[in-house]
């Protein structure tokens, strides 16, 4: 259980500023993820960077970048929606790649579709300009019980 993340999480919940928590996670910083509450919704952004490309002839982002961005968005959505100080542990992540993300800045947002005592499920999608045309979506299940679960 993480002391640093725990205190930043409490701060983010109190202040509505989620960027500091994001910047405390090395991987989120590596991708360049930005987080902001917009009109009552937690919105994540991923500005395009050339080194994140997986197919150089299309300038398309690597599938792992999309998957990692969606997983980051799902975890943050869960932390934002829950009261618990427990950092969720990913059980499964199923990503659908719908359109190639060519040289584009991305946005993502998620929805908690099920919240049980031990498991939470999140659906998350990312898009560039039109939210109605997602580039990728994912469904994830998380362990949210005590540190010793299951």
């Amino acid at each position, binding site marked *: 259980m*993480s002391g*640093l993340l725990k205190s930043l999480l409490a701060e983010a919940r109190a202040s509505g500023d989620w960027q500091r928590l994001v910047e405390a996670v*090395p991987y989120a910083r590596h991708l360049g993820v930005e987080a902001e509450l917009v009109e009552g919704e937690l919105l994540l952004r991923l500005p395009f960077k050339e080194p994140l490309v*997986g*197919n150089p002839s299309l300038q398309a982002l690597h*599938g*792992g970048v999309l998957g990692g961005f969606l997983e980051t968005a799902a975890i943050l959505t869960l932390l934002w929606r829950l009261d618990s100080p427990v950092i969720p542990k990913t059980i499964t992540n*199923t*990503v659908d790649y719908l359109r190639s993300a060519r040289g584009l800045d991305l946005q993502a947002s998620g929805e908690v579709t099920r919240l049980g005592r031990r498991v939470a499920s999140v659906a998350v999608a990312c898009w560039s300009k039109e939210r109605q045309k997602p580039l990728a979506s994912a469904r994830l299940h998380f362990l949210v019980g005590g540190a010793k679960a299951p």
Partner: protein
Amino acid sequence: MSGSPLPPQSGSGPEAFHAVMRAVFGGVVPYVQLLGITVEDYEDRTLLMRLPYDGSLVGDPDSGVLHGGAVTTLIDSACGLGVIAALEKPRPVATLDLRIDYLKPAEAGRDLFCRSDCYRIAQQVAFARATAFHLGEEETPVAAALGSFMLADLPSSENGA
């Protein structure tokens, strides 16, 4: 690149793999290079890749455990590039879907390996499975995955449908 002769698919070893990647991408994949992912072994539709542990890929700064996104990247690379190398006429592919089961946490400070197996190549789609593990612990993997991949049209084909 479109007209250059491709190495025989029966080739094995990292060199044969790299020759295929040069033919398909004209070099390296930027994000694979950024993470320092390397090819350890390649033979008969099976690809073994290594992701060096790096602090910048950590998900929990207190435990030092890699973020799931780093594991996803290693697995997607091994499956996608493994499919490309397994094709009779190698060409780019696009991941259609990828499901990853996290079986146990990766250990802080240790490199992660991934062995992918392209077990079915159809006309337009190929299927791959993979496990990610620490060296010497392939029987108790960190993650298991299944993916499907769309095959791009060959440069010589008439249209992109």
